[in-house]
Protein backbone atom coordinates (compact mmCIF):
# COMPACT_ATOMS: atom_id res chain seq x y z
CA UNK A 1 0.00 0.00 0.00
CA UNK A 2 1.32 3.43 -0.95
CA UNK A 3 0.10 6.86 0.15
CA UNK A 4 1.17 10.04 -1.62
CA UNK A 5 1.30 13.15 0.51
CA UNK A 6 1.64 16.47 -1.26
CA UNK A 7 4.78 18.22 -0.01
CA UNK A 8 3.11 21.62 -0.15
CA UNK A 9 0.21 20.46 2.03
CA UNK A 10 1.57 17.81 4.39
CA UNK A 11 4.70 18.38 6.46
CA UNK A 12 7.43 15.78 6.73
CA UNK A 13 7.47 16.27 10.49
CA UNK A 14 3.79 15.26 10.76
CA UNK A 15 4.30 12.23 8.52
CA UNK A 16 7.30 11.01 10.52
CA UNK A 17 5.47 11.50 13.80
CA UNK A 18 2.47 9.55 12.46
CA UNK A 19 4.74 6.76 11.24
CA UNK A 20 6.32 6.53 14.67
CA UNK A 21 2.94 6.50 16.42
CA UNK A 22 1.56 3.81 14.08
CA UNK A 23 4.75 1.74 14.00
CA UNK A 24 3.22 -0.96 16.21
CA UNK A 25 0.46 -1.52 13.62
CA UNK A 26 2.49 -1.74 10.40
CA UNK A 27 5.90 -1.25 8.77
CA UNK A 28 6.65 2.04 7.07
CA UNK A 29 9.10 3.32 4.51
CA UNK A 30 9.24 6.88 3.29
CA UNK A 31 10.59 8.29 0.05
CA UNK A 32 9.92 11.21 -2.21
CA UNK A 33 9.14 11.86 -5.83
CA UNK A 34 8.72 15.36 -7.29
CA UNK A 35 6.03 17.07 -5.20
CA UNK A 36 5.09 14.09 -3.06
CA UNK A 37 6.27 12.20 -0.03
CA UNK A 38 5.67 8.53 -0.72
CA UNK A 39 4.83 6.38 2.27
CA UNK A 40 4.98 2.67 1.66
CA UNK A 41 3.07 0.63 4.20
CA UNK A 42 3.52 -3.09 4.61
CA UNK A 43 2.69 -5.80 7.16
CA UNK A 44 -0.51 -4.09 8.24
CA UNK A 45 -2.43 -5.92 10.94
CA UNK A 46 -5.09 -7.90 9.01
CA UNK A 47 -8.04 -6.55 11.03
CA UNK A 48 -7.02 -2.94 10.17
CA UNK A 49 -6.27 -3.39 6.50
CA UNK A 50 -9.52 -1.82 5.21
CA UNK A 51 -9.30 1.42 7.13
CA UNK A 52 -5.57 1.80 7.69
CA UNK A 53 -4.79 4.10 4.76
CA UNK A 54 -7.62 6.52 5.52
CA UNK A 55 -7.01 6.53 9.27
CA UNK A 56 -3.31 7.13 8.74
CA UNK A 57 -3.99 10.05 6.35
CA UNK A 58 -6.42 11.55 8.85
CA UNK A 59 -3.88 11.22 11.63
CA UNK A 60 -1.16 12.92 9.58
CA UNK A 61 -3.54 15.79 8.88
CA UNK A 62 -4.51 16.05 12.52
CA UNK A 63 -0.83 16.47 13.47
CA UNK A 64 -0.43 19.40 11.12
CA UNK A 65 -1.11 22.18 13.62
Amino acid at each position, binding site marked *: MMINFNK*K*IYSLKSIKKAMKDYSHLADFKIGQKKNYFLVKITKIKPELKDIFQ*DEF*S*NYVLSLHQ
Partner: protein
Amino acid sequence: MKSKINQKENQIVFYLNSKTYPLEAIYSTAYVFLDRVFVYLDGDPAKKIMVSLKGKEKLNKTQLENLQGEFQNELLNYLLRVEIAKRNQKVRDFIVGTALVSALPTGLLTQTSQSELPGTVDWQKDPLGIAIPWEEKYGKKKRKTKKKSGR
Protein backbone atom coordinates in the same frame (compact mmCIF):
# COMPACT_ATOMS: atom_id res chain seq x y z
CA MET B 1 -18.64 24.57 -7.38
CA LYS B 2 -18.03 21.33 -9.21
CA SER B 3 -17.84 18.12 -7.26
CA LYS B 4 -17.42 14.49 -8.09
CA ILE B 5 -19.29 11.86 -6.13
CA ASN B 6 -18.08 8.31 -5.99
CA GLN B 7 -20.78 6.37 -4.16
CA LYS B 8 -18.90 3.12 -4.38
CA GLU B 9 -16.00 4.70 -2.49
CA ASN B 10 -18.41 6.65 -0.25
CA GLN B 11 -16.51 9.74 -1.29
CA ILE B 12 -16.99 13.27 -2.59
CA VAL B 13 -14.20 15.26 -4.22
CA PHE B 14 -14.23 18.99 -4.89
CA TYR B 15 -11.77 21.79 -5.56
CA LEU B 16 -11.22 25.04 -3.68
CA ASN B 17 -9.62 28.17 -5.08
CA SER B 18 -6.58 28.92 -2.93
CA LYS B 19 -6.90 32.66 -3.50
CA THR B 20 -10.35 32.63 -1.92
CA TYR B 21 -9.70 29.98 0.71
CA PRO B 22 -6.22 30.06 2.25
CA LEU B 23 -4.63 26.77 3.23
CA GLU B 24 -4.67 27.79 6.88
CA ALA B 25 -8.49 27.96 6.86
CA ILE B 26 -8.72 24.63 5.00
CA TYR B 27 -6.53 22.91 7.61
CA SER B 28 -8.70 24.19 10.44
CA THR B 29 -11.91 23.14 8.68
CA ALA B 30 -10.51 19.70 7.89
CA TYR B 31 -9.59 19.28 11.54
CA VAL B 32 -13.23 19.80 12.55
CA PHE B 33 -14.33 17.02 10.19
CA LEU B 34 -11.71 14.45 11.09
CA ASP B 35 -13.96 12.60 13.53
CA ARG B 36 -16.77 12.18 10.95
CA VAL B 37 -14.97 11.66 7.65
CA PHE B 38 -11.61 10.74 6.18
CA VAL B 39 -10.09 13.90 4.75
CA TYR B 40 -7.41 13.88 2.09
CA LEU B 41 -5.95 17.04 0.57
CA ASP B 42 -4.01 17.45 -2.65
CA GLY B 43 -3.33 20.00 -5.37
CA ASP B 44 -1.37 23.21 -5.55
CA PRO B 45 -1.80 25.63 -2.63
CA ALA B 46 -0.97 28.48 -5.02
CA LYS B 47 -3.88 27.63 -7.32
CA LYS B 48 -6.42 24.93 -6.45
CA ILE B 49 -6.70 22.53 -3.56
CA MET B 50 -8.45 19.22 -3.95
CA VAL B 51 -10.52 18.12 -0.98
CA SER B 52 -11.60 14.52 -0.70
CA LEU B 53 -14.15 13.63 1.97
CA LYS B 54 -14.80 9.95 2.55
CA GLY B 55 -17.54 8.98 4.98
CA LYS B 56 -16.64 6.73 7.89
CA GLU B 57 -20.18 5.40 7.70
CA LYS B 58 -22.06 4.57 4.51
CA LEU B 59 -23.55 7.77 3.02
CA ASN B 60 -25.94 8.24 0.11
CA LYS B 61 -25.58 10.85 -2.64
CA THR B 62 -27.57 13.53 -0.80
CA GLN B 63 -25.62 13.01 2.39
CA LEU B 64 -22.34 13.33 0.52
CA GLU B 65 -23.54 16.57 -1.10
CA ASN B 66 -24.62 17.87 2.31
CA LEU B 67 -21.20 16.99 3.63
CA GLN B 68 -19.62 19.23 1.03
CA GLY B 69 -22.02 22.04 1.95
CA GLU B 70 -21.22 21.67 5.64
CA PHE B 71 -17.52 21.69 4.88
CA GLN B 72 -17.84 24.91 2.89
CA ASN B 73 -19.93 26.56 5.61
CA GLU B 74 -17.31 25.68 8.19
CA LEU B 75 -14.67 26.93 5.80
CA LEU B 76 -16.37 30.33 5.68
CA ASN B 77 -16.43 30.36 9.45
CA TYR B 78 -12.69 29.75 9.62
CA LEU B 79 -12.03 32.17 6.79
CA LEU B 80 -13.61 34.90 8.90
CA ARG B 81 -11.58 33.84 11.93
CA VAL B 82 -8.35 33.98 9.93
CA GLU B 83 -9.27 37.44 8.59
CA ILE B 84 -10.13 38.78 12.05
CA ALA B 85 -6.94 37.28 13.50
CA LYS B 86 -4.90 39.06 10.81
CA ARG B 87 -6.66 42.38 11.37
CA ASN B 88 -6.35 42.30 15.15
CA GLN B 89 -2.84 40.91 15.40
CA LYS B 90 -1.16 44.21 16.31
CA VAL B 91 -3.80 45.02 18.92
CA ARG B 92 -3.51 41.53 20.44
CA ASP B 93 0.28 41.76 20.54
CA PHE B 94 0.02 45.14 22.26
CA ILE B 95 -2.50 43.91 24.84
CA VAL B 96 -0.48 40.80 25.66
CA GLY B 97 2.74 42.82 25.83
CA THR B 98 1.19 45.35 28.18
CA ALA B 99 -0.28 42.60 30.35
CA LEU B 100 3.09 40.84 30.61
CA VAL B 101 4.94 44.04 31.51
CA SER B 102 2.38 45.01 34.13
CA ALA B 103 2.56 41.50 35.61
CA LEU B 104 6.30 41.86 36.30
CA PRO B 105 7.24 42.60 39.94
CA THR B 106 7.95 46.33 40.37
CA GLY B 107 11.44 45.70 41.80
CA LEU B 108 12.42 43.61 38.80
CA LEU B 109 11.00 46.17 36.42
CA THR B 110 13.06 49.00 38.09
CA GLN B 111 16.23 46.92 38.06
CA THR B 112 15.77 46.03 34.45
CA SER B 113 15.08 49.59 33.36
CA GLN B 114 18.10 50.88 35.31
CA SER B 115 20.48 48.30 33.93
CA GLU B 116 19.22 48.97 30.42
CA LEU B 117 20.15 52.68 30.58
CA PRO B 118 23.72 53.26 29.41
CA GLY B 119 26.09 55.08 31.77
CA THR B 120 23.81 55.00 34.80
CA VAL B 121 25.22 54.57 38.31
CA ASP B 122 23.59 53.53 41.55
CA TRP B 123 22.21 56.70 43.19
CA GLN B 124 23.41 55.61 46.68
CA LYS B 125 27.07 55.70 45.61
CA ASP B 126 26.98 59.44 44.82
CA PRO B 127 30.29 59.66 42.88
CA LEU B 128 29.87 63.40 42.24
CA GLY B 129 29.38 64.15 45.93
CA ILE B 130 26.23 66.13 45.40
CA ALA B 131 24.20 64.25 48.03
CA ILE B 132 26.30 65.57 50.98
CA PRO B 133 24.69 68.49 52.85
CA TRP B 134 26.50 71.84 52.64
CA GLU B 135 27.10 71.99 56.39
CA GLU B 136 28.81 68.60 56.46
CA LYS B 137 30.99 69.39 53.50
CA TYR B 138 32.05 72.97 54.23
CA GLY B 139 30.73 73.94 57.66
CA LYS B 140 33.35 72.30 59.93
CA LYS B 141 36.31 73.26 57.76
CA LYS B 142 35.34 76.92 57.99
CA ARG B 143 35.18 76.78 61.78
CA LYS B 144 38.64 75.19 61.88
CA THR B 145 40.04 77.87 59.63
CA LYS B 146 38.47 80.52 61.83
CA LYS B 147 40.11 79.02 64.92
CA LYS B 148 43.48 78.86 63.16
CA SER B 149 43.19 82.49 62.05
CA GLY B 150 42.21 83.46 65.64
CA ARG B 151 45.52 82.24 67.12
